[in-house]
């Protein structure tokens, strides 16, 4: 396999949430990113944060229909991390870094913007989930986030049968939807 094919396979693995692909990308790139961040007023903990964030940007990119990476993964990750870190320094009013690894970078503004929009949507949904209270929150999380089956949920939450649990789940979902859209429209 040449590099291009290897990277394509890695990204396909990433899109499928494959831990092996994640691990390979981590091994190949993490040290460089940490070096960059530590050299720019950051700590290894910051590097972990930023790298995770960049991995999510890459994940979103790998999953999108219009997906095409015009550069190597390492260049892309470095560009995203660099941008994210500069932004964070700016937000925290820390000084700007003066040192750069002499590495090629690519434009990643659009992706980072899209990623931030997504993050906002997710935080809206999480906020809505936190607001509906129990047992709704747990039931919905079990079904929609952890993808557990209805009989399993009925068992965990003590419903006599899956149908009862299902009715309860729909009631909860309606409430969640209401809260979510109320916030969503406020935010627009």
């Amino acid at each position: 396999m040449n590099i291009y094919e290897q990277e394509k396979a890695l990204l396909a693995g990433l899109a499928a949430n494959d831990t092996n692909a994640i691990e390979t990308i981590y091994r190949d790139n993490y040290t460089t990113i940490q070096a960059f961040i530590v050299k720019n007023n950051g700590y290894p903990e910051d590097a972990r944060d930023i790298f995770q964030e960049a991995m999510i940007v890459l994940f979103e990119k790998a999953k999108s229909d219009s997906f095409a990476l015009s550069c190597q993964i390492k260049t892309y990750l470095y560009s995203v991390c660099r941008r994210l870190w500069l932004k964070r320094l700016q937000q925290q009013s820390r000084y700007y870094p003066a040192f750069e690894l002499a590495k090629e970078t690519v434009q990643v503004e659009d992706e980072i913007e899209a990623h931030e929009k997504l993050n906002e949507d997710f935080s809206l949904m999480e906020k809505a989930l936190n607001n509906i209270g129990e047992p709704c929150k747990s039931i919905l999380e079990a079904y929609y986030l952890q993808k557990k089956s209805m009989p399993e949920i009925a068992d965990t939450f003590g419903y006599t049968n899956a149908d009862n649990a299902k009715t309860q789940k729909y009631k909860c979902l309606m409430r969640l939807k209401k809260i979510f859209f109320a916030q969503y429209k406020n935010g627009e």
Partner: protein
Amino acid sequence: MDDTLLLDAIERYRSGEMSPQEIIFFEELRKNNPDIDQLAAEHNFFLGELDKLSEIKNYRHNLNEVENKLANEGVISLKEAKAKTKIVYLWNRYRRTIAVAASIAGIVSISTATIVSMYSESKKVEVITPLVDHQLKQFANKLNQIETKLNDAAVGIKTPAKPKFEANFRATGFLVDGDGYIITNAHVVDNAKNIIVENKKGEQFSAKPVYSNKITDLAILKIDDTLFKKVTNLPYTFPKYSAELGEHIFTLGYPREEVVYGEGYLSAKSGYFGDTTSYQISISVNPGNSGGPVMNKNGEIIGIISSKETNADGVVFAIKSKNIYSAVKELKDDESIKLPSVNSLRGLDRVHQIQKMEDFVFMVKGN
């Protein structure tokens, strides 16, 4: 059809649980009932959002798993955090010296860059290649040699060699009290072992910090050199009131070995991220301008240059001069500063203002 049924239908539709007949019926229903179609679209979007959240959460979970695994193997090191603290700190220092104006123009930054690459080599992490050409340093050295030769030739007498002092940063400062008190930025002198101030004639005096505040980023140095002659009347004052938007301002500083004049205007009454202790000014500055005075048309010093935004041109931040008053108040008992109260620059034209004050603006160097 009530919402619950519709939700159920959409979920089964999305997950492919519907029979072909059901699908036809459902699609027909949506086509014929705009209301239901609207609701269905909304439900669909909503469930899509939930799906995406689920996906990201699972993905994050995997990221954490991998991270923990690699941390256990030592590929990702957290211990490094503590071991590196000291180095990071030093980095801060050099970086901050330059970060004041991140363009990499001056000799200071070149020498800093050299130090930086030395550090990185000793750290045995990936060698950074600063975006500076090391040949520039040699070039700069040559230039200095030539300059010295020319100066010597012009004067005709060989000037006594200055004590050898290897500075690794350079900034600006100015007298706030004729007794030898100089104000500059805290980020300039914090961590410096030796500090030397130099006036525009090239006379050097040793100085030591007597005050430093990281929050306001102000520091006060005291010239403790016997060669320094006290100044009786400083020509400028420090207004306590806030300067106005659009005011024309000018500055003197040492972005190079010679004093450099710059002018611009006050662009905002607050500094970086709404910081009310500083102004945003629009002026061209370079590394070395840090700690320089910002004057208005009357020659009053309204601020002290502290930093600039890397990604934007001409966005510079200056600490408001009223912070000087609080700095002076916070001085230790054995130091006392009397700020000048008479402004003798008012009404003069710019050239004369500069002539009257440039002797009191110093280059701050150190290592």
